[in-house]
């Protein structure tokens, strides 16, 4: 690396000491709100729930929320990577269902197959998405919409329109969904572990930096030497793998591959990612935010279940409202951040 010694007038890059300090501080505060806003809302909503609903206040209920949140968490984790690049993956809901059916079917051959088959198939579909998006420059929306329809068709075909239910045959595999460690469900541990790995990958690896760069400006990233195609393919493979894994984990929990659940999971995942502060246009966001977003949606669902006579569809109304508020807030905050 070349460095330059003294002799350069120290001029460029500042608009006077006071101006810089002020924009620095505004930038930091607004950045903090953007990153931690979802967490703050999650804490507030949780505190309200604790105060209002007696049944909310049990360890059991906390466990229920976490276990229910594990599969959406895995899907939203993959979606975070995809959205950070400026893309979108609509296929994950279908892949989730397909992964569940495949896992239940393959469990007759043992634990390893029950995991490998859904991962291979869903990862393969993710690879297909990624290749099309990277090499033909087709819009991710269209490519993954096609994959959504295709994967749903495959799932319907192998389950005879849903009339054939595959039951999980491997006890070892079933433990993945039903067992627990230290009182916390295995799938929660799995999701937490993958979230941690995801955070490290995003913040501390070249791949993670490439993901941000791609979402920030694809042209500039290419000129700066970022492997644009490889990064794009990578995020769609990752998203496919995690959706398949989420489906497998859910099948292990339910004891069978259920074909009716999971439609619309992709939209919940997108909502959680955006509520978590990741820009839908890519380039900025965090996995921590996505975790808060997923838990927030989970807590809202749980609260509405506590209100016995309230139709659970109201959860969607509330989630939608949150989403709208977050998007408006993001727009305002970004404007603040750009102002000098």
């Amino acid at each position: 690396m070349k460095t330059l010694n003294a002799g350069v007038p120290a001029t460029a890059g500042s608009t006077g000491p006071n101006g810089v300090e002020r924009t620095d501080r505004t930038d930091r505060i607004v950045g903090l709100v953007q990153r931690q806003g979802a967490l703050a809302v999650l804490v507030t909503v949780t505190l309200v729930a604790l105060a209002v609903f007696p049944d909310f206040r049990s360890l059991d209920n906390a466990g229920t929320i976490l276990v229910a949140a594990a599969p959406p968490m895995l899907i939203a984790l993959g979606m975070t990577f995809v959205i950070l690049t400026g893309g979108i993956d609509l296929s994950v809901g279908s892949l989730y269902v397909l992964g569940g059916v495949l896992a239940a079917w393959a469990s007759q051959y043992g634990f390893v197959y029950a995991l490998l088959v859904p991962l291979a198939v869903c990862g393969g579909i993710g690879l297909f998405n990624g290749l099309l998006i990277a090499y033909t420059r087709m819009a991710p929306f269209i490519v993954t919409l096609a994959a959504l329809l295709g994967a749903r068709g495959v799932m319907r075909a192998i389950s005879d329109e849903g009339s054939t239910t595959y039951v999980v045959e491997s006890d070892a595999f079933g433990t993945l969904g039903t067992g627990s460690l230290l009182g916390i469900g295995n799938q929660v541990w799995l999701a937490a572990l993958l979230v941690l790995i995801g955070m490290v990958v995003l913040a501390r690896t070249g791949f993670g930096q490439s993901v941000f760069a791609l979402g920030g400006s694809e042209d500039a990233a290419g000129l700066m030497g970022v492997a644009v195609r490889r990064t794009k393919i990578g995020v769609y493979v990752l998203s496919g793998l995690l959706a398949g894994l989420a489906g497998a984990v859910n099948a292990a929990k339910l004891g069978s591959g259920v074909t009716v659940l999971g439609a619309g999971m992709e939209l919940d995942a997108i909502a959680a990612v955006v509520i978590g502060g990741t820009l839908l246009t890519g380039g900025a966001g965090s996995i921590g935010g996505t975790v808060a977003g997923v838990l927030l949606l989970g807590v809202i669902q749980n609260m509405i279940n506590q209100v016995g006579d309230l139709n659970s569809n109201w959860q969607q109304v509330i989630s939608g409202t949150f989403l709208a508020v977050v998007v408006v807030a993001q727009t305002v905050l970004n404007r603040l951040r750009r102002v000098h």
Partner: protein
Amino acid sequence: MALLEVVDVSKTFPGVKALDGVSFTLQPGEVHALVGENGAGKSTLIKVLTGVYQPDRGEIHYQGQPRSFAAPMDAQRAGISTIYQEVNLIPLMSVAQNLFLGREPRNAVGMIDRGRMEREAREILAEYGVTADVRRRLGTLPLGAQQMVALARAVMIDARVVIMDEPTSSLEPREVQTLFSVIRRLHGQGIGIVYVSHRMDELYEICESVTILRDGRLVHTGRLADLERIELVSLMLGREMSEVRRQGFTEFGGDHETPEGAGPVLRVDGLTSRTKLHDVTFDVRPGEVVGLGGLLGAGRSETIKAIGGAYPLDGGTVEVDGVSLKRPTTERAVKAGIAVQPEDRKAEGIVAGLSVRDNIALAVLSKTSRFGIVSDARIDEIVQRYMSRLRIKASGPDQRVGDLSGGNQQKVLLARLLATGPKVLLLDEPTRGIDVGAKAEVQSLIEELAAEGLGVVLVSSDAEELVEGSDRVVVLRDGAVVGHLTGDRVTTEDLMASIAAAAPESPA
């Protein structure tokens, strides 16, 4: 041994021979100017050197070896770095991340070492005069600082060759000086620099040798000091020197006729906006070109924007033909007959993704539609009229504006403004970043428009252009009017004197 040598390279795009048997040699430690009008083949040559394009014919020798670069990364790895006219970094990522993207310092287990990265970024950038917090998002820095980050990045990767494509187009004068001291240092380290710029002063200040391209062909290469300015211009344009000399550097003629006794078409009275504008007052008569002079940040662009209704005002009035615009908004300003050409045509002017036709039509949709239905025939007629009148060089009305040269983009923008039928034309740096030929055309167009009775307000950082183009010059400093140049006093010397007199403590 030459550091980088291009031998007889050709590159053809559908319908255009962008490079035709061009050769180019860069010695170690040489600052080599690459000049030519837009469309002469400079950008294509740069893209061939950096692996963005593959040449159809010819060879590239780098450090004595024949090489071919399949992608920008290949060229970068070999030590050829480029900084582009528009900063090509990631605004949403931090300054440090931008500096190190792709080659971040790693810790013992191969993870990115954030602390070290930020520390090193601070040290490196301090040498380029950038003192901002390296954790800040790059996009929140002033453009000049962003350009310095791009330069630091280009040099950091053990560059042997640094290509600079119009690096000063967004820099302030003092930032240009910082850039030049960095260039001199690189020169001392034996790094070869290819310097592309339209600014003559800069070329003669920093470059030793020059290569001139015209229409994809090499027309001259040699020492820059041996070449008179006027020779350089005539080689670029392919015009006779005597012709260039006779016409002067700009296309502007003498003063303009103003109809006797005509009242002002534009009256600006007491424009005030917090810290940016203080009681700015002047008027423009029909057929007159009034220049706004002053240094960068003096309030010229703000004044233009405020008159066009695009800048918040705390006080002051704008009158067109004696009718006051109450609280100017862009919509009211356009209706009153004010047309504004913004400084940054890419961000605030043209819509790059739309065709020439659609760009021009944008301004006149309401005029050409009935009950909300647009009449294609009337739009076509207007588009045809302005395309031929402004001599817009495009394959047709349906070509994407983004694919045109800078000069032609500017003409499309002017066509759109003229199609609204304005009474006053506000031009903010109308010839910035466009080549010499198009510059001349835009200048003569301004002449023509004034002759037809339009009132014109002209902002230009090019003192010669401002002085030759304007009948009067209003000098601004720190948002206030500090001088008027009229008659024989409209000269560059008087302009400099007025700016200098207005600034008791010289910033230099």
